[in-house]
């Protein structure tokens, strides 16, 4: 049977990042094909190439056996490929009908176009259980219904193949179930569905076949019926060489941070952090593992005082900092924060290194009496930090943006560690950082712990979590799935990370 879609030898680089390495994949028609992998595995890039957002550096795409060139999304749409994006492409003040029709109006005057479209919409809705009020304002619809509009958009344009990118990230469990029903109906009607996700449950629940991507490569393709979550988890996470980190046993002291039933809801009312409780003690490193987007970033923001809890408490050294909601206060209490996004949060690119080195700490009296900022002291402090942490080049006057990723990170870590915190919270400390810097950063974090401080580490790199943490929590969909020790296997953690098997609370 001719595959609906074939990707042959797709290769794509973005600068030094090799996003897709010679990927070859065939999707059978009338099936639901899952593509699973961690962040950065290359699945989104691959699908973006299929939908015409990017052009592959090399390789070929075939639709129904015929080689095609997809240079833009209109090309893809013309070939019957539709995409439902992770972040919806909807015009919120428009009605559902207007959104569906946009770009495929079928005439200069939309009056008659809308009437025709309405009939078509009603038909599609009935056929696929995609019921949506055509005159509802999209901005006011719940997320699950918004997604239906996205799907209808694709179907309205005659999509035969539907790509869904992480569709359940914003859905409640009920909405997710309904989505799966819709996907099954689509399949029954002969459509081809490609599902990109990192959630194993979904793969097992509705796909016919599943491909695993890891670090830009297509690692394996299996019949879903013939595989297990364990096998997939292992393929997804892979067997890496563990970076040997010298680490003695931990000597945990009193509790420094206590998070109690913390919930944080975003603007649409979705709980990004869902009833999370844990504590961190002096002299230990608590690692939070999980695929990015499962609430870890939001959790860090709340603890750091950037976001305010919707409910629950964050108690730091006996004080409820959830009420304060102010990063400055939190720092004053003895917390330091290495943010996940060093370029947008951790540094100011246009400032020189010296000024980035005081970001968040610029109020200190040691940097200037009263309202003053003593430039000499600032530069001296930066210079000392840069020397100690081997930041290259050790020039405090160089613009922050000019340092390499690893050196930028060292600058930030130096800044936060040298503030002598009681608790250091750090997100993705070695993302985009070279090996030498990784080693050093890990060493300093352990050193901090050995000095009796507490560390809360969030990372999507399972190796890092396993080699640094004294205890490991796994987060998925905003909840803590369970706690494990550092000896836990990749398979165990991978399962939890993919949403399988939550520990009893």
């Amino acid at each position, binding site marked *: 049977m001719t595959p609906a879609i074939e990707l042959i030898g797709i290769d794509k680089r973005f600068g030094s990042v090799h996003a897709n390495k010679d990927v070859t994949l065939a999707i059978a028609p009338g099936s639901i094909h899952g593509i699973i992998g961690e962040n950065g595995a290359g699945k989104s890039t691959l699908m973006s190439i299929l939908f015409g957002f990017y052009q592959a550096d090399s390789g070929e795409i075939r639709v129904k056996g015929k080689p095609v060139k997809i240079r833009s*999304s209109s090309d893809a749409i013309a070939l019957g490929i539709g995409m439902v994006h992770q972040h919806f*492409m909807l*015009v919120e*003040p*428009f009605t559902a009908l207007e959104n569906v029709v*946009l770009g495929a109006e079928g*005439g*200069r*005057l939309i009056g008659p176009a809308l009437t025709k479209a309405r009939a078509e919409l009603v038909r599609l809705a009935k056929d696929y259980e995609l019921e949506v009020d055509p005159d509802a304002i999209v901005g006011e619809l719940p997320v699950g219904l918004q997604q239906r509009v996205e799907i209808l958009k694709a179907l309205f344009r005659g999509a035969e193949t539907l790509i869904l990118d992480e569709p359940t990230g914003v859905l409640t469990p009920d909405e997710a179930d309904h989505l799966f029903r819709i996907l099954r109906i689509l399949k029954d009607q002969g459509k081809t569905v490609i599902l990109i996700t990192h959630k194993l449950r979904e793969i097992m629940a509705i796909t016919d076949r599943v491909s695993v991507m890891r670090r830009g490569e297509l690692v394996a393709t299996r019949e879903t019926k013939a595989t297990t979550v364990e096998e997939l988890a292992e393929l997804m996470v892979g067997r890496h060489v563990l970076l040997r980190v010298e680490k003695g046993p931990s000597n945990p002291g009193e509790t420094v941070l206590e998070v109690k039933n913390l919930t944080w809801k975003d603007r649409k009312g979705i709980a990004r952090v869902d009833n999370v409780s844990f504590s961190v003690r002096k002299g230990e490193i608590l690692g939070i593992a999980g695929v990015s987007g499962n609430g870890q970033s939001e959790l860090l923001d709340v603890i750091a005082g950037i976001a305010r809890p919707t409910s629950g408490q964050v108690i730091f050294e006996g004080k409820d900092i959830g009420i304060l909601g102010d990063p400055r206060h939190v720092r004053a209490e003895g917390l330091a924060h290495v943010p996940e996004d060093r370029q947008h949060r951790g540094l100011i690119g246009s400032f020189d290194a010296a000024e980035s080195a005081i970001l968040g700490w610029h109020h200190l009296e040691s940097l200037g009496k009263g309202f003053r900022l003593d430039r000499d002291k600032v530069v001296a402090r930066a210079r000392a930090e840069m020397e100690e942490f081997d930041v290259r080049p050790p020039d405090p006057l160089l613009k922050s943006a000019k340092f390499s990723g690893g050196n930028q990170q060292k600058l930030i870590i130096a800044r936060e560690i040298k503030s002598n915190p009681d608790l250091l919270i750090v997100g993705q400390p070695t993302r985009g950082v070279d090996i030498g810097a990784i080693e050093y950063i890990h060493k300093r974090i352990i050193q901090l712990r050995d000095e009796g401080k507490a560390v809360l580490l969030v990372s999507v790199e399972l190796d890092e979590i396993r080699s640094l943490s004294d205890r490991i929590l796994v987060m998925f969909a905003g909840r803590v799935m369970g706690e494990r020790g550092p000896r836990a296997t990749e398979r165990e953690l991978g399962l939890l990370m993919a949403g399988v098997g939550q520990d009893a609370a």
Partner: protein
Amino acid sequence: MNLYIELLASTIRMSVPLILACIAGLWSERAGIVDIGLEGKMLIAAFVAASASAVFGSAWIGLFCAILASLAFALVHGYAAINQRGNQVVSGVAINMLAAGLAVVLGNEWFREGGRTPALPPEGRFLPFEFPMLYDIPVVGPFAKIFLTHSILAYFAFAIVPISAWALARTRFGLRLRAVGENPQAVDTAGISVAALRYRAVIIAGVLCGVAGAFISTSLSSSFVRDMTAGSGFMALAALIFANWRAFPALGACLLFGFLQAVGNFTQGASIGGFQIPVQFINMLPYVLTVVLLAGFIGKSVPPKASGIPYVKDR
């Protein structure tokens, strides 16, 4: 009684340039391009209209040239905003300044009157219609005096409001244009060119400002004087915001502001129950009202979501 008739007729006259500029701004902003330069486009159009009309002896040639001039400035702004992804506010400020300076410099050079253009003969102006036989008829007479004593450009202005409202709501172009002002990415992924839509919007704005400027110098008045627009471009912007970026409310807002202008001109102040209100306070009322609205004290001000943000294909 005559006073009120005059006042209402004057209101309509004063609101014509506001309406045209306001609708120009409407098209531009609904597509996501902030246009602070309405004032400048109107000004250069006023100058060019009066100059061309004086030189060629025809108001229509004046109008045509005015539209071209306004279009030129509009395209500069469009290029800066769409292709160069520059700061749209700065571009608008620059256009205003450029127009103000150029109008006087060129006017001075061409006509040697320190920036004025020569007084226009009747053929060089858009004269109001007149129906003297109607004026003495009771009931119809006053009505005729208020509504039927305007030039053709004025009626064009009033017509453009329902036309624009209809076009925005009921045509494919209008739908796409509104979409691009709210979520350009959605438009892009639907395979439609964001730049093409936005350029069209900018061109429409340019044309309408051209008509507005021509009206001011060849209909409302009979020549061009420096800084003739006197802030009406900004008042139109204020009216647009006051009307929450909708066509018919914009008409209402422009009429209201036009009324305030007319009152200011007429009475040099007004009295309410014996209380003298200085003219300056009437003059500032449109602006104060706009600020009050922007501050959210009367209803919510909701601009198009992508307004002023250059579109970058963000991948």
